[in-house]
C-alpha cells in the first residue's frame, strides 16, 4: 500500500515516472486540498518554494505560488531570466546549486527539453517540472485528470480526443502518458504535420487503444472528453497552409450541438481563437474550471513532496 510519505523528497519530472497507483494517490490528495483553498492552512508554514521561470508563463507560475501561499508557505524566484545571472550565461546546473540553498523545493519552467531532469540531478532539494520545452508538463496532466474525475466521476472507460498541435504541445504529451495508465480510448486529432510525437506514440501504443485522425466531426457524437490545444502559426513554414488548417480545428457552439450533452471541453489555456467565446456559456465548457483543479493538484504535490502529509 502506498503511503503519503512515499512521496517525500520526490522529483516530479515526467508523468512517466509515476505509476497509476501513485497518480491516483495524488488525485485523491488533491481532492482533500479543495476545502483548504477557502479555509487556508499552515501545512507548509516555514517552507520556501523557489520558482525558476526561464520562459514566461504567468498562469503556471501564479498557480504554483498561490498553492504555496494557501498552504502557509512562502515563495521566492524569478520569471524574467533576462534580469538575472542567467542572462550573463550562467548554466542551469549552477543556478540550481545556488537556489537550493534558499528553498525547500524548486519549480522550473525552461525552454529546452530535458531541462527539469538535469536540474533535478544537480539539486539536493526536490524539483518539479513546470514545462520543459516541447517535452512535458506533468502537473498540467495531473490537473487535467483531476478535472475529468470531477466532471465524469471516473477516467476508465472514457472516449477522449486530444485536438490540435500534438507534435509540439507539451501538455498533450504528458496527458497522453497519464491517460495511458487508464482504460481509455484515445483519439489523436491533428493536421498531418502536427501528429503526436513518435516518442509518445511508442510509449502509449500497446497500453491503450490509440487512433490518429485528421477530422474531429465523425468522432464528436460519441466523445466524453474533448481536449483542445492551440495550433501555432510559427509551426507552419507556409502561412497559407496554416490558414487552411486553422479553421478546421476551431470549436464553436454550433459544432458542439452534434456532440453529447455531457461532453466536456478542456483546454490548457491560454486560448486564442481555437475555442469560440460562445462556447464559454455552454455546460460543456470546462476550461476555466480546470484552473481551480490546478491549485488542488499543486497544493497536493507540494504537501506530499515536502512531507507535510503523514
Amino acid at each position, binding site marked *: 500500500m502506498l503511503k503519503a510519505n512515499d512521496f517525500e523528497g520526490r522529483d516530479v519530472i*515526467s508523468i512517466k515516472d509515476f505509476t497509476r497507483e501513485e497518480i491516483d494517490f495524488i488525485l485523491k490528495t488533491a481532492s482533500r486540498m479543495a476545502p483548504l483553498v477557502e479555509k487556508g492552512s499552515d501545512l507548509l508554514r516555514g517552507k520556501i518554494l523557489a520558482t525558476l521561470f526561464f520562459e514566461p508563463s504567468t498562469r503556471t507560475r501564479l498557480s504554483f505560488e498561490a498553492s504555496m501561499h494557501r498552504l502557509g508557505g512562502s515563495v521566492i524566484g524569478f520569471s524574467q531570466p533576462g534580469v538575472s545571472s542567467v542572462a550573463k*550565461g550562467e*548554466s*542551469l*546546473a549552477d543556478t540550481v546549486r545556488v537556489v537550493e540553498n534558499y528553498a525547500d523545493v524548486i519549480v522550473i519552467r*525552461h*525552454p*529546452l*527539453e*530535458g*531541462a527539469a*531532469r*538535469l536540474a533535478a*540531478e544537480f539539486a539536493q532539494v526536490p524539483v518539479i517540472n513546470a514545462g*520543459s*520545452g*516541447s*517535452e512535458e508538463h506533468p502537473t498540467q496532466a495531473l490537473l487535467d485528470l483531476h478535472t475529468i474525475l470531477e466532471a465524469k466521476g471516473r477516467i476508465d472507460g472514457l472516449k477522449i480526443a486530444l485536438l490540435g498541435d500534438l507534435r509540439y504541445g507539451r501538455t498533450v504529451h504528458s496527458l497522453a502518458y497519464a491517460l495511458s495508465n487508464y482504460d481509455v480510448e484515445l483519439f489523436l486529432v491533428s493536421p498531418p504535420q502536427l501528429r503526436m510525437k*513518435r*516518442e509518445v506514440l*511508442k510509449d502509449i501504443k500497446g497500453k491503450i487503444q490509440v487512433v490518429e485522425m485528421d477530422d474531429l466531426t465523425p468522432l464528436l457524437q460519441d466523445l466524453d472528453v474533448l481536449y483542445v490545444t492551440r495550433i501555432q502559426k510559427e509551426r507552419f513554414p507556409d502561412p497559407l497552409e496554416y490558414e487552411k488548417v486553422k479553421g478546421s480545428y476551431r470549436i464553436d457552439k454550433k459544432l458542439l450541438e452534434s456532440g453529447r450533452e455531457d461532453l466536456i471541453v478542456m483546454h490548457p489555456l491560454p486560448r486564442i481563437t481555437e475555442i469560440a467565446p460562445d462556447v464559454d456559456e455552454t455546460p460543456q465548457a470546462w476550461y476555466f474550471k480546470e484552473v481551480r483543479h490546478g491549485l488542488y493538484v499543486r497544493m497536493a504535490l507540494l504537501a506530499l513532496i515536502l512531507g507535510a502529509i503523514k
Partner: protein
Amino acid sequence: MTERTLLIRKIENGTVIDHITAGYALDVLRILGIRGREGNVISIAMNVPSRKLGRKDIVKIEDRELRPEEVDRIALIAPQATINIIRDFAVAEKKRVTLPEVIVGIVKCANPTCISNSNEPVTPQLNVVQRSPLLLRCHYCGTIMEKEDVLKQF
C-alpha cells in the same frame, strides 16, 4: 578459411574487424573517423558468406591498433563484431565489442533543443532501448535515435 585469405591478405600488424553486420563496413570506418587519407593500408570485404551471420563484412586496418573507446563505438552499428589486434602476423589480442546499457559521451542527443546540447556541465547520455535494430533514447529529453541518427555524427 582459404577462401577468406584469398579475399583479403593476412596483415603483419594492425586490427582486423570481423563479423561486421553485412553492408556496414564503410560505416564502421566512418564511425572510427577513418577516411582513407591516413595512409594505412585498409582492406574491406563486404557481404562475405559467414556460417554465423549468413553474410558479414570484414575490415583490416594495417599498422593501427584500435583503442577501447573506438571498439565501443563499433558496437553501436555492428553489435556482433569481433576485433583482433594483430602483431607480427599473429593474433595478439581478441576483443568483443559490447554495447553497454547506457552510452555515455560517444554520441550526442539528436534533438538540437535538448538541454544536453546546451552549455551545461553534463555528458550526453543515451539509454539503449533496443540493440538490433539500434534504438537509443536520450536520458534527458527522451528523444529516440536510430542507427542513421548516430552515423550522421561521424
